[in-house]
């Protein structure tokens, strides 16, 4: 992770830089998540020093930002491979990286040390905007838009001047939408319903439409790179996925418009379109496993048993996990509470938190980690990268931890829905009765335990990403020597 020595292209070096910052921010996300989890059990922990709202801002903003960093990194990394040429504006790309990293650092420091401000416009401009997930103050919004414009310029003109593959065509279109949607979140209104209406344009159309298509494109690239899957087939699947993801995801936005003051007709639109959202996720799952099996079978038929089609087994493991996790976390856990008949009780409970944890991990964290392993492989010039003990510990512990947190939060959600919402009727008093029940406390205890396990898994992951390159490089050099001897 710490070297670029075998990378030919400037674009890939920029990509590696983004990966390095992303993995650090991933660690920060987990740490602040642990603070929140502890506060659920011991509310006095860091009270009036680092209150829950601030810890949570850091938890969810670090999440969004590390993912955006890893996404930018992934695009810079795969761009030369796909386009067959280096990025058009490498200097500009580097500048963008440093400015963005500096801006993120300032935003984080302000969150940590200034935290909140008076009820004035200046707070929204300079401290925090107080809108979930996009709390970044307005000056940072403008900065982000500028950096993304640089990034998009680079991607677009490299695409125009290079090879225009199907994967790049999808990415170029998808990134434009992804960047443009951010603008729907950069304004202030006194009308809370209007506020949340447009806020969902950013959040939903990111995570349930454009980010999903992005993941489809990354998986397509990964399958070609790792398995040598046939481009024609992979790209055909990609277009089918785009069709299904956008076909269900864009109007699936309706499932956020059930209760925020918006008209009743969204019940029907939201219910039916978002129910179809798991369909493309099944398709992606089938596609990845089918390609894996097919290429492996093909390899064995040609080279005999014991031959491996996979040229990067940690990356492949994370991609397979992505295929399953996306379907389980985004698909199944999302469908659980997407119908208005159910959602009127589950809306705004721990149910949502359960879904959020498994979906962000399964759909996004996994594939971005896979891209980081691909980056390490490229940077050290390794032909066939295999899993180390640490890779296995990382994937095992993180997966176990996240699934454990999800199960705990789902149980907490059930309890909250049945007691607070159904039995007692959702008031201030009902809320606290449900929060103080043993079932809720036990679930929150398990969530913390599983969170700690996830964090240990992260330590293995970080350690592995830093060391695996040298280990595997040395192993290949040894094998080569013994083959020569």
């Amino acid at each position: 992770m710490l070297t670029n020595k075998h990378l030919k292209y400037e674009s890939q070096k920029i990509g590696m830089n983004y990966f390095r910052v992303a993995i650090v921010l991933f660690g920060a996300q987990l740490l602040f998540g642990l603070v929140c989890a502890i506060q659920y059990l011991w509310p006095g922990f860091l009270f009036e020093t680092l209150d829950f709202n601030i810890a949570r801002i850091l938890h969810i903003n670090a999440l969004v930002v590390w993912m955006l960093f890893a996404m930018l990194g992934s695009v810079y990394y795969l761009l030369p491979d796909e386009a067959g040429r280096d990025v058009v504006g490498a200097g500009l790309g580097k500048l963008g990286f440093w400015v963005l990293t500096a801006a993120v650092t300032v935003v984080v420091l302000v969150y940590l040390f200034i935290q909140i401000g008076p009820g004035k416009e200046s707070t929204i401009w300079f401290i925090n905007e107080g809108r979930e997930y996009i709390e970044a103050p307005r000056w940072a919004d403008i900065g982000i838009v500028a950096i993304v414009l640089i990034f998009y310029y680079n991607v677009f003109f490299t695409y125009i001047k290079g090879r225009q593959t199907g994967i790049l065509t999808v990415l170029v279109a998808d990134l434009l939408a992804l960047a443009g949607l951010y603008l729907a979140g950069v304004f202030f209104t006194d009308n809370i319903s209007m506020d949340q209406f447009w806020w969902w344009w950013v959040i939903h159309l990111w995570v349930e439409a454009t980010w999903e298509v992005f993941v489809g494109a990354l998986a397509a690239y990964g399958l070609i790179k790792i398995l040598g899957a046939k481009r024609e087939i992979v790209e055909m699947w990609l277009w089918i996925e785009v069709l299904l993801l956008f076909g269900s995801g864009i109007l699936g936005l309706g499932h956020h418009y059930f209760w925020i003051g918006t008209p009743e007709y969204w019940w029907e639109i939201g219910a039916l379109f978002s129910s179809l959202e798991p369909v493309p996720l099944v398709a992606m799952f089938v596609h990845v496993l089918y390609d894996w099996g097919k290429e492996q079978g093909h390899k064995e038929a040609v080279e005999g048993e014991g031959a491996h089609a996979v040229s990067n087994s940690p990356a492949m493991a994370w991609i397979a996990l992505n295929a399953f996790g996306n379907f389980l976390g985004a698909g199944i856990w999302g469908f659980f509470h997407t119908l208005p008949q159910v959602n009127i009780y589950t809306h705004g409970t721990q149910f949502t938190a359960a879904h959020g944890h498994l979906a962000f991990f399964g759909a996004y964290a996994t594939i971005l980690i896979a891209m980081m392993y691909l980056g390490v492989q490229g940077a050290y010039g390794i032909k066939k990268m295999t899993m180390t003990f640490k890779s296995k510990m990382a994937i095992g512990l993180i997966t176990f931890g996240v699934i454990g947190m999800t199960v705990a939060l789902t149980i907490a959600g059930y309890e909250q829905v049945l007691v607070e919402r159904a039995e007692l009727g959702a008031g201030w008093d009902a809320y606290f009765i449900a929060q103080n029940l043993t079932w809720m406390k036990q679930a929150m205890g398990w969530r913390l335990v599983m969170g700690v396990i996830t964090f240990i898994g992260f330590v293995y992951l970080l350690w592995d990403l830093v060391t695996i390159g040298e280990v595997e490089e040395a192993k290949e050099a040894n094998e080569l020597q013994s083959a020569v001897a």
Partner: protein
Amino acid sequence: MSNKSASVWTSIRFWRRSAAWVTATAVVLLMWLTFDTVKQISMGSDEDLKKGIRKRIPAPTVINYHIDYKFSKKRGHEVPVIGQKEPFFGKEWSPKEAAALLHKGKLTFQAKACIDCHTALGNGAYYAPDLTKAWLDPKWNNGTMTAMIGKKTKEEAMAEFLMHPDKYPTHGRMMPNLHITKDEAIALVAFLKHMSSIDTNGFPRNFSINAKRLKGGTNAH
């Protein structure tokens, strides 16, 4: 490849065209729906309130009216009911004053990052109670909190609580002191009262059983 791809189902072009068509059409439909919804969720005017015209999101001057939450047979769920005029912090607010107050309230709501502990309209964090109908909560209506804080009206009690939440702890998990000034607290209460008048299609469901339950005390702890 040309003689092999006789089936349209394995043609990349077919899927690419279909993907482009479906995406573009979904975007157009979403825009059409958005125009309709934005019109419906724009704030009503003071005139609407005076004439009793129902709007999903009423004008800021709704703070001058009594707000209730009642089951509607026609809608099949509870809806906000805007009633007679009542003073808010002892006076009637002009449209201009009310708008300025709501503006300050919403700004403060964001500046203090309320939504990262609470939910509003069900969106936010789950560490503290939902604020959608906080103004109507029987804990304030029945006088429990109001009496504890020692204020005559609900709005004064709420403002006092927001300024010094650490003085009135009710549970182990309590609200931190966010250095909310008196002006900000009044504005926040106006924001909460306005939010409680929004028609949320019956969310949170069964909210009004709280009032019955707390009066009878059968389920209360």
